[in-house]
């Protein structure tokens, strides 16, 4: 009787041989942390521990093969296309080796080259080996964003078009559905509605560009990950989300991801794009970002209460609403 991972290794081998014909065995197939329905596995192509390695991301066939998109994002197949487009623009991303086809029997997903580095913010901020990279990281992030924003949109009709008003309305509706009174959120919704950016640029936007989705090495930014929330929206959103206090992981004195200054992020952006950063719009989106993360935490209570997910984690996250409330008050009522 073979184990699930032995079966997967056998299925994987024939697929891998289509782009690596020399490979005759899948080595060290290991399940990495992943979401509830999506799987992430790493494996080596040879028995050399320092040799080439790949990552498989997939939605297995028994869980409804085709991912028509997660609750919020695009399908894995479309995400793979985005990685390829991003690479064409010079954005550092893992190289896609193969997109899964239904007849291969592995479900939906893709195989990419493994990139060496760290993504966990708490580790990055405390690491001795990565410490020299941190001072240049904000600027590197600023330099990479215009490349993301200039990704051509033809053939990407699957991406949602979300102007500022649509995004505001989406989270307002979510708040109303939750049906629980949060006066600080009400205050923020009104404040933001009075300052909605109008007629702003609409470009390709990463949508989740923050500390936690960046692969960091001693040389700095190695790869931009997690493109499933990609959308057409205000590019200033991407400059703001990475500055939301929730993503500073305790180092609140460094607005950019807990590691850098806004000045460096903006300078990097302006140098690469040749355009000026709209500071007022970035501030709008940064404040909106705390409200957005707060509402995401809040809405997880619905999943918990409905019985859909009774994990300790799902139960604990809604108690993080108060973190976003204090960040909103600090931003709205103080010059912070």
């Amino acid at each position, binding site marked *: 009787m073979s184990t699930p991972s032995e079966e997967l290794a056998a299925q994987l081998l024939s697929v891998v041989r289509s782009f690596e014909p020399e490979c005759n065995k899948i080595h060290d197939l290991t399940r990495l942390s992943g979401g509830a329905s999506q799987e992430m596995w790493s494996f080596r192509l040879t028995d050399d521990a320092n040799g080439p390695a790949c990552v498989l991301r997939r939605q297995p066939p028994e869980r409804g093969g085709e991912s028509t998109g997660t609750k919020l994002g695009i399908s894995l197949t479309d995400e793979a296309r985005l990685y390829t487009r991003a690479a064409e623009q010079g954005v550092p991303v893992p190289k896609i080796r193969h997109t899964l086809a239904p007849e291969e029997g592995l479900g939906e997903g893709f195989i990419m080259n493994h990139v060496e580095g760290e993504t966990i913010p708490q580790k990055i901020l405390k690491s001795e080996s990565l410490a020299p990279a941190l001072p240049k990281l904000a600027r590197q992030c600023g330099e990479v964003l215009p490349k993301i924003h200039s990704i051509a949109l033809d053939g990407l009709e699957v991406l949602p078009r979300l102007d500022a008003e649509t995004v505001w309305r989406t989270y307002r509706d979510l708040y109303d559905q939750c049906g629980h*009174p949060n006066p600080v959120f009400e*205050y923020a919704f009104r404040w933001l509605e009075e300052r909605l950016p109008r007629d702003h640029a609409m470009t390709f936007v990463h949508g989740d560009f923050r500390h936690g989705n960046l692969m960091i090495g001693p040389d700095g930014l190695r790869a931009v990950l997690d493109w499933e929330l990609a959308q057409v929206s205000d590019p200033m959103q991407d400059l703001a989300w990475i500055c939301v206090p929730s993503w500073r992981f305790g180092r609140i004195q460094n607005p950019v991801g807990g590691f850098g200054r806004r000045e460096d992020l903006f300078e990097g952006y302006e140098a690469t794009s040749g355009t000026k950063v709209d500071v007022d719009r970035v501030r709008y989106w940064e404040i909106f970002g705390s409200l957005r993360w707060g509402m995401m935490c809040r809405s997880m209570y619905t999943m918990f209460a409905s019985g859909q997910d009774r994990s300790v984690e799902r139960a604990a996250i809604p108690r993080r609403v*108060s973190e976003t409330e*204090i960040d909103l008050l*600090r931003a709205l009522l103080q010059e912070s």
Partner: protein
Amino acid sequence: MQDPPSPEELLKTVHDFLMNVALPKLEGHDAFHARVAANSLAIVLRSMSLSPEQDELELGRLRDLLGQEGDLMSLNRELCRRIRDGEIGLESEALQQHLWETTLAKLAVDQPKYASYRDEIGA
């Protein structure tokens, strides 16, 4: 009357078991979940200790702010309605003060180690 240990003592014991006995023996996701579970117990303990007085203070502030009677839920709903409908100005100092105090009280229970909170209280 119930026998000792008190509810607080029971919760504290379970919290300490999770952190000191269970957690060192667990790996990966299970370890993470054990830590979250212990943290949830700590929230309950702080809530038992702080919320009764905090809720009383909040109720008093809401009654003053809104000029009406009610329980916490109904008064919070009314406050939200007034903010949403523009009946109370965003620049109202009484409103702002109420929101600050309510939020600081929440964090004292939910996450007293949160960096923004510690910065605010000067810790």
